[in-house]
């Protein structure tokens, strides 16, 4: 084990200056200590994490295929960001609330959301397929940045309740430019709200590289708002877990928010409708492939004798089973009933909405009567 601060990349590798971050597991699977981020995990915890990583990678791969087959309208792949999502989500307590973007499938999965609900969103069957309050992960947020304020307000609610829950808001590097995210920083700091801002810097906002959003590392944004920022190796699931755990502990202890910048990479296109070859060199993606977040856990498990080949194969075949079931269920997912158009707009009666629903039902019926 080595001790110290790791460097995320070298100047020649990515054409930018070296990046310091918290790393607990090197790309080779070597365990590193980082002062302030001690982490002790049991073998069972480690294998569970590995299982999650492999399963969501398999699901993501399947979803890409389903999108290609037209079963999904679009898919936003999280390939490359598995460690950031599983690591941070594992740090959450049962009562905590997560506020995701459209790419946080690993977080949703971690919170126990049925993957069909995740894919159903991308199929266009519904905007959100789960109960956000019960699963303790909110609906996917599409308007960049908006939900960071919801997380902050939710955390203000926690303060008023006097419980030691916390909120976590997920967002991307691009989102840091949005007014709402910065306002969330202002409100969270002013209230010392128990919220963690978890930014997955995957280097790209669609085709725009992170240096168009900021000329300084993103985690440094926090300090000027009056709370700490920390950069973590986003491809290191252990570091993501440890750093998020500390930030959550600080939040619960009344020490206010933390901004975590998980330095990672979007291995695929922005979504299945994107063509990343138009704007980024293949070499960059290849470079990042060598830092694969799953591979290093496998190496670590194998090297430390926790896992053998049999275990690895078992994990893979179970993931495959999840995927087969998922494929079947998404293909047979029924379209929503047309009445849903009017069903949820208002909690209370609304004469115009009710009239429209009735009139449209009559209109549809007129076809079935063969009048048209």
């Amino acid at each position, binding site marked *: 084990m080595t001790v110290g601060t790791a460097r995320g990349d070298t100047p020649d590798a990515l054409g930018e200056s070296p990046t310091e971050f918290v790393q607990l597991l090197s790309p080779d699977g070597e365990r590193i200590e980082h002062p302030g981020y001690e982490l002790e995990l049991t073998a069972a915890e480690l294998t569970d994490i590995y299982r999650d990583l492999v399963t969501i990678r398999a699901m993501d791969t399947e979803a890409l295929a389903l999108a290609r087959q037209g079963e999904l309208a679009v898919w936003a792949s999280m390939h490359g960001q598995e460690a950031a999502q599983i690591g941070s989500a594992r740090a959450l307590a049962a009562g905590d609330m997560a506020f995701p973007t459209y790419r946080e499938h690993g977080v949703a999965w971690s919170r126990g959301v049925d993957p069909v609900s995740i894919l159903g969103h991308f199929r266009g069957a519904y905007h959100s397929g789960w109960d956000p309050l019960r699963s303790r992960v909110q*609906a996917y947020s599409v308007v960049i940045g908006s939900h960071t304020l919801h997380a902050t307000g939710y955390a203000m609610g926690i303060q008023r309740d006097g419980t030691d829950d916390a909120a976590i808001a997920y967002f991307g590097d691009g989102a840091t430019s949005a007014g709402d995210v910065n306002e969330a920083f202002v*409100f969270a700091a002013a209230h010392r709200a128990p919220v963690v801002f978890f930014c997955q810097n995957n280097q790209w906002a669609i085709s725009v590289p992170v240096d168009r959003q900021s000329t300084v590392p993103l985690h440094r944004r926090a300090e000027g708002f009056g709370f700490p920022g920390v950069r973590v190796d986003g491809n290191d699931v252990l570091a993501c877990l440890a750093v998020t755990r500390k930030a959550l502990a600080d939040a619960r202890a009344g020490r206010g928010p933390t901004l975590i910048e998980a330095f990672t990479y979007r291995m695929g296109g922005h979504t299945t409708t994107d063509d990343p070859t138009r704007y980024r060199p293949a070499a960059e993606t290849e470079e990042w492939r060598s830092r694969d977040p799953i591979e290093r856990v496998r190496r670590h498990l194998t090297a430390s004798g926790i896992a053998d080949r049999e275990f690895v194969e078992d994990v893979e075949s179970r993931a495959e089973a999840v995927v087969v079931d998922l494929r079947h269920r998404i293909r047979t997912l029924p379209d929503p009933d047309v009445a849903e158009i009017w069903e949820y707009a208002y909690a209370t009666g*609304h004469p115009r909405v009710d009239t429209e629903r009735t009139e449209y039902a009559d209109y549809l019926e007129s076809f079935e009567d063969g009048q048209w």
Partner: protein
Amino acid sequence: MVTTEAVSLSRALNEGLRRAMTDDPSVVVMGEDVGMLGGVFRVTDGLQKTFGATRVIDTPLAESGIVGTAIGLALRGYRPVCEIQFDGFVFPAFNQITTQLSRMRTRTRGAVELPVVIRIPFGGGIGAAEHHGESPEAYFTHTAGLRVVTCADPSDAYTMIQQAITCPDPVIFFEPKRRYWDTSVIQRDPVAAVPLEQAEIVRPGTDATLLAYGPMVRVCLEAADAHEDRSLEVVDLRSLNPLDEATVLESVRRTRRCVIVHEASVTGGYGAELAARITETCFRTLVAPPLRVGGFSTPYPPSRLEDHYLPDLDRVLDAVDRTFGGRP
């Protein structure tokens, strides 16, 4: 504190808020200067003193932040009442209102309700600076998922703010700025309260219907009083979305003529929806087209010109006479 003497509309709102906060500890009030100052119109006067700074929150100066964190508080089970300081400053929050607040229920298939009230002092006529005299209601009535209401007098102010707070849907609550200091004895009996979504015939008449809301209700009442030859019915819409179609259409069918009055630009204003809907449903009954009286199709002018821009008694009467076939 319950009074029997006449109170101002601002005071009635204050009492309504106080009542709601007393009844339900999940109600929180938030906005710029709502604490010690009591709001620039004193609507939240003294609330922080009574309920403390955790329930009456002086926010940072950021409207998107106010509405966005209110949504978060509602997700946690609170019932936030946000104050937007003036009509013209609601636009930084427009994204949160339009893409988040109005849709969370639909987005989550009914799993999440957001009982958030957004109070907005609106309308002109007080000689104020740019952005302090406007009427943005049409932006909200076109936004599905929101309820939009406005009160015109202290009694309604007192009850409607409480109804808005207990409503499970998000409510945009417009307060007629220039009527804040109008006073009347308020009706406090909750049993007698008119439902939030109901319009009221505030002056019965037989020859033409005047449709108005908020600050223009008084102007229409004065116009009805002033008209020498015609019996004018005045309907205070109170709820713009949903619209109480039953009351409105019944009145127009009876009088067969109507004039719609609001301060906002006529072009694309709420009056367009009223006129279109009335025409669709009452075409054969109407003897004249619904006419609209409102602000012009230009930005709100500097205050030295606002009396021209805003509908007044004469412009309302002029329109009434036009529905009877031209000026007398």
